[in-house]
């Protein structure tokens, strides 16, 4: 019971609660024991955050839920005041069968299902390689491999855009050497091009997490395995990989959540190759387009909620599946 009361308090009473308690703390009346005062002061450390969190995270969620239930129509050519009317779940009903939105969702889901395991596999390979060399060598390589992580995401996308480009990019002549002639911006290659960019940008960081997990494996186990005649490859597969499974799940989950909301990469690719990337290429792009090009914020809010639900469901399913495998 008390927890529900507190939930409500931090939901809609966040502004009132601190001011009331702050007044009590400031007055320092003898009615409060020093213990209570200390508690109030302790709690007051969190108030700036609690207020800001309520205003900039919880309030938007509530606003979004509210907006999605209305629809606004402008009369004529967009001039004059818009008439806002309660629409119930109309926006959701429309969003749930919107072929443009679900096409984009399918596109991104297939991409995520392929690219996330690929990234995991490469990152794991990299972490195992780094773990297999001497510490001094490892430290040097680790820094080099983390360079992509240090380069801002937008700059990374631009670099690869130019590398892929038929005009300034060296990649096409490079592949030409092997007799492979390909257009990196064509409809069939575009996801491969974006996928390579994702691999390049994230393997260093994922490697760091997995390498950290590998470092926690007690070294005596390896010695014991070597005495028993296990090869280094066997040790990697049968001891190291099972040890880092938890980290693999974590990085995989983060990748999936990020990939389903992908926006920056296709948006920048679109400015180079608008014919293979439509304005509704990914769910986030559909939402952006609905909100700021079409101007239907209510519908965009509803689509945001649907996207959030899909992302949440995907996280839960992956979590469940991986837990089942582990047990």
């Amino acid at each position, binding site marked *: 019971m008390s927890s529900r009361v507190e939930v409500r308090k931090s939901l809609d009473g966040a502004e009132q609660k601190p001011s009331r308690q702050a007044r009590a703390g400031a007055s320092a009346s003898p009615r409060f024991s020093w213990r209570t005062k200390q508690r109030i002061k302790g709690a007051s450390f969190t108030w700036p955050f609690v207020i800001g969190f309520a205003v900039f995270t919880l309030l938007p969620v509530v606003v979004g839920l509210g907006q999605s239930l209305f629809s606004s129509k402008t009369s004529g050519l967009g001039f004059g005041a818009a008439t806002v009317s309660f629409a119930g779940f109309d926006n959701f009903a429309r969003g749930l069968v919107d072929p443009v939105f679900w096409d984009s969702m399918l596109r991104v889901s297939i991409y995520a299902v392929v690219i996330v395991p690929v990234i995991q596999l490469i990152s794991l390979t990299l972490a195992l*390689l780094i773990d297999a060399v001497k510490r001094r060598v490892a430290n040097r390589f680790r820094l080099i491999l983390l*360079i992509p992580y240090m380069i801002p995401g937008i700059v990374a996308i631009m670099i690869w855009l130019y590398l892929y480009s038929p005009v300034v990019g060296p990649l096409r002549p490079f592949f030409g050497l092997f007799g492979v002639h390909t257009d990196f911006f064509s409809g069939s290659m575009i996801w491969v091009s974006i996928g390579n960019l994702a691999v390049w940008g994230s393997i260093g960081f994922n490697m760091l997490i997995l390498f950290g997990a590998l470092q926690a494996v007690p070294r005596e186990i390896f010695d014991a395995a070597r005495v028993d005649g296990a090869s280094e490859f066997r040790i990697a597969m049968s001891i190291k990989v099972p040890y880092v499974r938890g980290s693999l799940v974590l990085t995989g989950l983060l990748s999936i959540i990020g990939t389903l909301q992908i926006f920056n990469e296709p948006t920048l690719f679109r400015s180079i190759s608008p014919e293979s990337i439509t304005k509704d290429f990914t769910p986030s792009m559909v939402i952006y387009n609905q909100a700021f090009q079409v101007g239907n914020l209510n519908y965009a809010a509803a689509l945001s909620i649907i996207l959030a639900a899909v992302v949440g469901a995907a996280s839960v399913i992956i979590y469940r599946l991986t837990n089942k495998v582990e047990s």
Partner: protein
Amino acid sequence: MTLTSSPSKALDTKKDTRKIELKALRLRKRQLRSMDNDDPSELSGKRGRSSWIVLVGLVLFALYSVGPAWWLLISATKSKEDLYTTDAMWFADFKLFDNLASLFTYQDGIFGTWLWNSLLYAFASSIGHTVVSMAAGYGLAMYAFRGKGTTMGFIIGSFLIPGALLTIPSYLLFVQIGMYDTIWAMIIPAFFSPFAVYLAKIYAEGAVPSELLEAARIDGAGEYRIFFQISSRLMTTAGATIFLLHFVGSWNGFFGPLVYLRGADKWPVMLGLYSWLQRGTDSTVDLTGLVITGSLVATIPMVILMIAMQRYWRSGVAMGSLK
């Protein structure tokens, strides 16, 4: 060996003693390193071939990682014409300074404004972000009070809220409260990050002993004074990590500025570069050279910062992933 063979004629000056000290230090380091290599498990001869395979694999990955960055570095030094005609992976005529000059003078030096905006947003938001998160994390770690459990619940729960859910409603909210298209939209909302609070709490639990707090109380220090004069100093590492991670995140931000800012004079550098990329492809002006040089200018501070402060963000990564 290096020690004895160094010239002994001018040992009296301070400079030379310092030099010799440095040499000795270097020698000692080298010894330590070679001891490090004598790890018995690494010495067995039959691992020779597999360790070559490992090394080749690592070199290939390293080339893959560095190649694009190298291309950016090379291309930023080329003139517009050389960009299209010369070998993409090697230097041509060195024109970096000409490129920089045209970068900072194009459109009355708007690139400088963007850089300044990025710096301002990154610094201002990171300072507030760090102070708010440290205080909240400390409060949650060190005190028992009503609503603590609920607050923690909300913090953990909010990790699951995808960014896409918040963008449109935040835009509406910012329009309502007059923050849309102002610098405050880039600064104030960034103060409140559940993840940073979580990091600070985890760190405070390990770094600030409650006995110390009791001792300070007995000496008559108030709770706020204890935080600002004692605990915050014990939490410096966490503070630096939180500051750095957010500084980099703010510098690299794209979607937020795209949605919340309209006027080009308020854009951060990433959004500015995007606008040039977009314009360069659909009009007659060729902005490719400017985008490339601008990208390099926007990247180098980040790379230097990240390398210099490796210790901090790596600890942040470890804290975030293991707990």
